[in-house]
Structures are given as C-alpha cells and as structure tokens.
C-alpha cells in the first residue's frame, strides 16, 4: 500500500471541491434545507407540547447525525461516479493504484464531505436554533464514527451495484441510504415501530446509534450496550460490503464491464 497513490486520488477530489462552488453547495444545500425545516417544526412542537422539552435536541441531533451517515455513503458512491462521469475511470485503473488504495482514497474524500457538511450544519443549528451539538458531550463521538462506517458500507454496496449494472444504477447513489431510514429509528424510538420492523431494526447498526443518542440526550448516561451492538453490526456490514464490492469488481473485470463503465 502506497500513501502517495491514495493521496493522489484524494487530491483529485479535493481539487474538484476547491474549484466547484456547485459541488460545495450540493453538499450543504439539502442538509441546510432539512435543518431549517425541521428546526422550525421542532420549535413549534416544543412550544406547544411542554412535556417534551428535548424535542430540539432529539430531532436536530438526529438530523445532523443522519446527514453524516448520508454524506459518508455519498462520499464513496458519488466520488466514484465523478470518475465515471469525467471518463477518467480508466486512467485511474490502468495506474499502479490497487483497489484497496482506491477505496481508502474514497473514504478520505468522504471524510472531506462529512467535514464540510458537519461544520456548516453544526454552525447553522447553533446560529438559527441555539442548538449546540457539542453540549450532548463526547459520548456522541463513538456513535458518530459508527455512522460513518455504516455510510461507507452502504456506499460500497451502491458502488459495487453500479460497477455491475452500469450507470443505469447510479440513481442508487442518492436513494439507497433512505431505504434504511425507516428502520433506523432516526427521528423516533424503535418502540414505535410495528413488532416485525422492530425485529428488523435490531439488525440495523443505525437504529442502535440513534437509540444511543436519545439515551445520551435524555439521561446523560453512556449506553454501552447499544454502542457494542452497533459496533458488532457495523463490523459485519462493512466486511460484507467489502466482500460484495471485491466480488463485483472481479465480475466486472471478467465481463469487461470495468472498461465499459469508464468509457
């Protein structure tokens, strides 16, 4: 593994973001829109329903964390698509870059996206709604990292499907994470789900993360069990996603799709 090769691919994404105002806008536009919308809804609800004073923290915290998951997934799949759209994919894959190095570069670029979106959202939540996510405390950090890993796992699966089925599958890059949202209990506790979906949610790392976040906010206690379950599930998801990606990569090479997706 050579760091200069990982850095080179990361640099290519960095140059795009440095130059393209629309890319930066795209990264922050939807999350900001969500933030403003949900921010006002939560203000209204917290004023009307006095028994639920933590509405703002619950919903805005969930919104910011969900966006981190979404951006980390997009950081993988949309960065991959950037190379496909620019017909630059072949240039990268005929270099000595290994598949692992490419994936690490995608993960680095995803961290860049998360950083941009995270900073803007945190700042705007504080400015508009006086919501300071850091007040939730350092306990939130491990959950945040677990969400990033889950986003990478979903991003890898999306990318593998695009490799196998071509650009007709690229719509997944924007929609696939949303499939997981209802059973991830982002804005409500798992207990409100019907029993069958509660069973599904138990196998969703994100559901444990969001349950953990609500526990941190409401009791201040660190939910060790939720964290460990989310970690174990994340390891399984990431390993399965990597195995799926490498399998699809091999299939794409065998069927000549790798060359076709890049032209």
């Amino acid at each position, binding site marked *: 593994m*050579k760091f*200069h*090769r990982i*850095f*080179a*691919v990361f*640099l*290519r994404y960095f*140059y*795009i973001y440095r*130059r*393209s105002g629309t890319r930066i806008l795209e990264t922050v536009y939807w999350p900001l829109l969500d933030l403003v919308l949900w921010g006002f809804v939560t203000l209204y609800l917290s004023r009307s329903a006095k028994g639920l004073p933590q509405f703002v923290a619950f919903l805005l915290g969930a919104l910011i964390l969900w966006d981190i998951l979404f951006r980390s997934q997009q950081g993988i799949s949309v960065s991959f698509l*950037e*190379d496909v759209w*620019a*017909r*630059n*994919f*072949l*240039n*990268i*894959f*005929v*270099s*000595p*870059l*290994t598949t692992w190095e490419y994936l690490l570069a995608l993960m680095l670029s995803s961290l860049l996206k998360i950083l941009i979106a995270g900073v803007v959202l945190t700042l705007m939540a504080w400015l508009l709604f006086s919501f300071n996510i850091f007040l939730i405390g350092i306990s939130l950090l491990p959950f945040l990292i677990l969400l990033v890993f889950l986003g990478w796992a979903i991003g890898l699966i999306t990318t593998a499907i695009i490799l196998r089925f071509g650009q007709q599958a690229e719509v997944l890059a924007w929609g696939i994470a949303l499939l997981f949202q209802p059973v991830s209990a982002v804005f409500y506790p798992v207990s409100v789900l019907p029993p069958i979906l509660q069973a599904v949610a138990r196998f969703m790392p994100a559901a444990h993360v969001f349950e953990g976040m609500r526990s941190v906010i409401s009791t201040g206690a660190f939910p060790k069990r939720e964290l460990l379950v989310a970690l174990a599930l994340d390891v399984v998801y990431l390993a399965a996603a990597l195995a799926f990606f490498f399998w699809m990569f*091999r299939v794409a*090479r*065998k*069927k*000549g799709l*790798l*060359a076709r997706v*890049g*032209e």
Partner: protein
Amino acid sequence: MREGRGAPVVDVADLVKDFKKLRAVDGVSFTVSEGEIVGLLGPNGAGKTTIIHMLLGLTTPTSGRVRVFGLDFGRHRSRILQEVNFSSTYTDMPYSLTVQESLRVFARLYGVRRREEKIRGLLETFGLTDIRRKQVRHLSTGQRTRLNLSKALVNDPRVLFLDEPTASLDPDIADKTRKLLKRVKEERGISILYTSHNMIEMEEVSDRVLFLHRGRLLAEGTPAEVVRSFRAASLEDAFLKVARGKDAGGKGTALP
C-alpha cells in the same frame, strides 16, 4: 512467431477472451519488443480494444498468458503498471481540474520524483504551457488529446498502450501527434502498442502491424509484408478486403 528488433517487453501467448457465447479474442499470440511501435489493426469487433484492456488488467482473460517485462501480469499488476501507461480517445481527464492539476494528480499517482520539473517539461513538449491553468472542460479536442498523451508520458513509461489516439483529431493535429509519438519513441526508446482505423497512419508510424479479424491474428509483419501477404495495394486495401469478406458473410476468402 516473428520476433521484433529488441528484447520482448510484452509477451502474449494464446490469449482468449469469451463474452458469454462470443469469442472476442481467439488464441492470439504476439510480442512487442523494446523500442518498437506495433500497430493493432482490424475491423470493428476484431478484438483490438479487448486485447489492450486485457494487457492493462481492465478485463480478465478467459485463458492465455500475459507477461510484461518478463513478469506475469496477474501476479505483478502494480509493479508492471508503474512502468506502463495508456491513452485513449475514449477517456478524458477530470473536467473540473486544470491541465496542470490533472498532471499533478497523475504524477503523484505514479510517484514521480521532481514532479513540477517533470510537468513543466511535458507542458512544453505538448505545447500546453499557455493553457496550463485552463480547466479541462474548456479545452478543444486537440488540446485534450495532447493532455492525454502528456499524462501517458508522466511516469516515463517503458511501454505505452494507445487506443485510437488520433481519432477525432483534424488531419493537422493528427499529423503533429504522429510525429510527436515517433519522436518520443526515438528519444526515449518506448515500446508502443497502437490501435487505429487510419491505415495511412498505421503504415507511417508502425514498425510492425498485427492484423486481427474476429478475434484471430490473421497476419503480422512490417506494413509492407502484411500488404504483400494480402496481395493488396496498401494496408487500406488489405483492410477493405478483410472487412468486405466479412460483410459478404464468407470466412474471408481474400485473406492470406
């Protein structure tokens, strides 16, 4: 099997590629020697691009052996690709990067030492210095081709694979590109495997040509030898005999 002038740097034996029921490449064997320009020619669907993709590891061969610099490609992919490069009319550099940034990315990717000096030299060689701060999206087709070629030389490759590098260029730029390739080959001793549908270009540039049809190697030799073997007046004439033999539905009765 005819050997080229120097030691073989690319050695392909019994290469086969099947896509479901279609045999795209059918037992092709050839070598490319040090400092040699070899032209791969044949009608559409002959298997030229598939062969190049297999030599670059983009497509896995169904069977056969690919050795580059004496090393097995499957086992030494990264090591081989460090000294190989590729340019195709069907690929591009990242649109939103400038010419200079694109070359910086690829110079880093190949671990080039003294990157800025190297990039300056390439910009000068390919006449890109004045447009080095221009984004790729704003370049003309000719400028993009020159940028692609300069990227292909950023790592001082020993072997260069070029897939129709002058397609979509006007005759003037195409001529300049051919001269540039010949100069690069003379100065750096690079081996080049080249595909093109321009037969005049093939005759002008190639030391040797490999004539493919339906995935099979029909003939190989210097352009003059191949023309003779087809009893044709020129490479273009030979090409038309092969292509029209196929169109007539026969097995290529005009073939040697």
